């Protein structure tokens, strides 16, 4: 029996997992990361667009600060987010980006003097100030009032992940690669680590830890068309759900990105539109201004994706063997700009489409992109249901994003959550000892080993890939961009049938290790359970909010649905999750519910909204003299780790 002991077990080597591990390691504790792939190959590497932090260095970012970022984030979330978390996040994001600059990310910098930019299809000249020269610059992204998305040329995620992994290597944090966590070890209300399967040898080990952090990324691969990497299967959330104790939050909140190429589903960054690219239909007509006169192509992702779908439904899509699509036109940006700032996009067009985006349009359509839902945690990142279990990054529902996340807020979240939650994990480890008998560990090991043995022994049965493919089609067809009761009900029934079938998977590959078929067979039932959490949650939520768009319930219903879905899987034999709901407290909100400023204004108001609005106005008036920090602290106090409490300095503004 192989047992490995550590203070902190981190499941996942993407940005979030690495940063959390670094936080505890730098507090003098040891940490081990397990990951399906080498850390630098994690999906975080794919983020091309950028990271939001309100530095306000560049001309179009002037006047930006935490408060503006906060407002954008809450509006983006359609008031579904946890505002305290959003507040902690916006206050820490500038520190996160500056720390990454120290750790080696070559952020693109402000060049003083005039430069050309394309705004709303017009070329304009922006003259950057001399004082800003050499500071971190930013670009425009959907749903933001200021240009706030910092970037490294076209390789933001890559450079962030490399700097982060390099720091982890410097800190001598071991990354156990090609390892998959397949179950959590727990008893009562405490988590003790995980059972981990070696994907090369097939052997199981128990990792026993004082604290365990799930940082396994999103669950995009529940859908057939997704921008996500092949490993984004949500199994981290899956093992949490399988405990029967841990809640998954808002699993129905799934974002579609407006521009992935057809058919491969590879994302072309929002930076294309941020930099001035346009969406066109079958007639070459630029249609977004008709739907969204103010934000046009740069309304938030959920809105643009729906408008595109609407437009295709009106018969304005371009037919192709892979279904209808629209065009993304970046030819107006010019070859030089494309080759320098959007080179990844150019490469993708060249390698996967065989076209030159400087002269040709790119076939795009909305594609699954981001999982707002995940392991529900409190403000400190600790999971609901098990002590000593934490979750960070896309795998978590810390609830920064509510029902729609803004582009650039996600890589920012991974790092900020790693910083904040990492401190909380370290506090937890300092206060707790491992108190666990080997018998318990053995029981969990045995249970998993026997499940594998049963699978290996079955000669005839279902094919894992076939079930997975069917599940992905069901999700796409029934639980996609527009949803309604009839389709969702049918989808839930199909998924239930697939879950039953998934209990009888048989595999042909008899190798003990290096066995992709077995690996998939172990994942598929977990994935179908997650899919059921998404589909069933979507069915029950009879309103439209952010990315969750019900055709039969088009209004955002704050009166009845200003609450978070919590999904539990109580018994292994169940075919549906148990749903509970957790209300959001309007009386504590810094920004009471309102209209987002884009999309359709169709809101059923919460009874507390008016009173809270008045209260907020009153506090603002009363404390006007004392400045925005005082107002903020009064409206909604938050508790950040001491080392991240300083106010952030900005050009021309100091720390005000």
């Amino acid at each position, binding site marked *: 029996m192989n047992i490995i002991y550590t203070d902190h077990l981190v499941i996942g080597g993407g940005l979030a997992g690495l940063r959390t591990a670094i936080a505890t390691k730098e507090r003098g504790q040891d940490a081990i990361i397990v990951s399906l792939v080498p850390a630098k190959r994690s999906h975080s590497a794919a983020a091309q667009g950028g990271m939001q932090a309100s530095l306000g260095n560049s001309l179009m970012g002037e006047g930006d600060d935490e408060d503006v970022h906060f407002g954008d984030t809450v509006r983006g979330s359609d008031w579904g987010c946890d505002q305290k978390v959003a507040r902690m996040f916006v206050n820490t994001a500038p520190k996160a980006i*500056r720390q990454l600059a120290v750790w080696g990310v070559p952020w693109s910098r402000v060049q003083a003097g005039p430069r050309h930019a394309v705004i709303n299809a017009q070329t304009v000249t922006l003259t950057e100030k001399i004082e800003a020269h*050499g500071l971190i610059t930013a670009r425009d992204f959907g749903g933001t009032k200021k240009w706030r998305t910092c970037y490294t040329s076209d390789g933001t995620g890559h450079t962030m992940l490399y700097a982060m992994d390099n720091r982890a290597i410097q800190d001598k944090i071991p990354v156990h690669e090609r390892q998959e966590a397949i179950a959590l070890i727990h008893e009562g209300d405490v988590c003790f680590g995980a059972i981990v399967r070696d994907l090369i040898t097939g052997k199981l080990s128990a990792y026993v830890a004082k604290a365990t952090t799930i940082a396994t990324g999103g669950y995009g691969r529940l859908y057939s068309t997704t921008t996500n*990497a092949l490993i984004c299967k949500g199994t981290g959330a899956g093992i949490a759900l399988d405990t029967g104790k841990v809640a998954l939050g808002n699993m129905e909140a799934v974002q579609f990105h407006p521009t992935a190429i057809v058919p491969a589903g590879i994302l072309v960054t929002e930076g294309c539109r941020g930099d001035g690219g346009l969406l066109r239909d079958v007639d070459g007509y630029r249609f977004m201004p008709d739907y969204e006169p103010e934000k046009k192509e740069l309304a938030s992702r959920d809105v643009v994706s729906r408008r595109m779908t609407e437009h295709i439904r009106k018969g304005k899509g371009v037919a192709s063997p892979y279904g209808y699509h629209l065009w993304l036109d970046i030819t107006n940006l010019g070859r030089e700009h494309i080759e320098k700032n959007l080179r990844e996009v150019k490469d993708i067009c060249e390698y996967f489409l065989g076209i030159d985006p400087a002269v040709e*349009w790119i076939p795009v359509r909305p594609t699954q992109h981001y999982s707002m839902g995940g392991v529900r945690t409190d403000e400190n990142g600790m999971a609901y249901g098990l002590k000593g279990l934490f979750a960070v990054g896309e795998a978590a529902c810390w609830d920064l994003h509510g029902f729609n996340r803004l582009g650039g807020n996600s890589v920012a979240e991974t790092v900020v959550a790693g910083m904040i939650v990492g401190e909380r994990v370290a506090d937890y480890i300092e206060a707790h000892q491992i108190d666990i008998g080997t018998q318990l560990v053995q029981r969990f090991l045995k249970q998993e080993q026997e499940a594998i043995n049963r699978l290996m022994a079955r000669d005839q049965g279902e094919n894992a890939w076939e079930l997975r493919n069917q599940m992905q089609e069901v999700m796409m067809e029934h639980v996609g961009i527009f949803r309604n009761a009839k389709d969702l009900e049918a989808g839930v029934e199909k998924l239930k049938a697939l879950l039953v079938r998934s209990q009888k998977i048989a595999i042909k590959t008899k190798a003990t290790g290096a066995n992709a078929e077995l690996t998939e067979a172990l994942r598929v039932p977990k994935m179908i359970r997650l899919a059921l959490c998404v589909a069933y949650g979507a069915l029950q939520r009879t309103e439209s909010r952010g990315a969750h768009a019900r055709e039969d319930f088009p209004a955002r219903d704050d009166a009845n649905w200003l609450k978070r879905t919590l999904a539990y899987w109580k018994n292994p034999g169940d075919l549906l999750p148990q749903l509970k709901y957790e209300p959001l407290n309007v009386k504590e909100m810094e920004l009471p519910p309102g209209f987002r400023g884009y999309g359709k204004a169709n809101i059923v108001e919460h009874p507390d909204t008016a009173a809270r609005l008045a209260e907020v106005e009153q506090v603002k008036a009363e404390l006007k003299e004392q400045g925005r920090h005082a107002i903020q602290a009064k409206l909604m106090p938050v508790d950040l780790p001491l080392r991240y409490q300083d106010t952030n300095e900005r050009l021309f503004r100091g720390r005000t």
Partner: protein
Amino acid sequence: MNPSAEKNPTQAPRDLTFRILRYNQHLPGDKPRVQEYHLQEALGMTIFIALNWIREHQDPTLQFDFVCRAGICGSCGMIVNGEPRLACRTLTRSYENPEITLLPMPVFELIADLSVNTGKDMRRMAERVESWIHDPEQDKIDISALEPAMEPEVAEEIYELERCIECGICLAACGTRRMRKDFLGAAGFMRVARFYKDPRDKRTADDFYEVLGDEHGVFGCMTLLGCEDYCPKQLPHQEQIAFLRRKLAST
């Protein structure tokens, strides 16, 4: 109208033959052999699509690695018709001959079939060249204050050299590495050049000499330049190797 609208390629589908080197040490009794698979080419088919199709429909025992399937994570290097390439972004239609041979990359530990352990070597490389910013004052910098400025071109230059995705193709294509297992290779040199040019890193030429000065370092390179030919990120290997040699020769 879209200028590219009429260019939609409508090829008649071809029959493709894949010859794949098979061996899984975790399968009792398995022996290295070449196995043949046949399938019909589809529009926009990459080797990624083809291999998954084979695995899901013909042979579930086949092992290979893909993660991003978009040419950015560096997981899928393999030898395609004799050349190391990222399989995910290799279109089958780029081969006139419909017979495609796939082998695992040499140099790395074989896991099974087309799957090799590049990650392990890359971690070792990173430890060896100490692939991080060296600055004793680093942790004293106040991250709530304005960040230290950096010239925009310097940032760009660093990024240019940091675009390596650790796919290992340069090592698989390297004659020197095949002969000498401890030869650092192009990815390592590129990493050193990246930190050398970074003003935040306080290491001197002497410090880098310690890492690169022996026959396993930059002077051991026989300038065969397979790295430059095959690097999927088209990194300027020749130029950077020359740069490092120049700098280190004078220490």
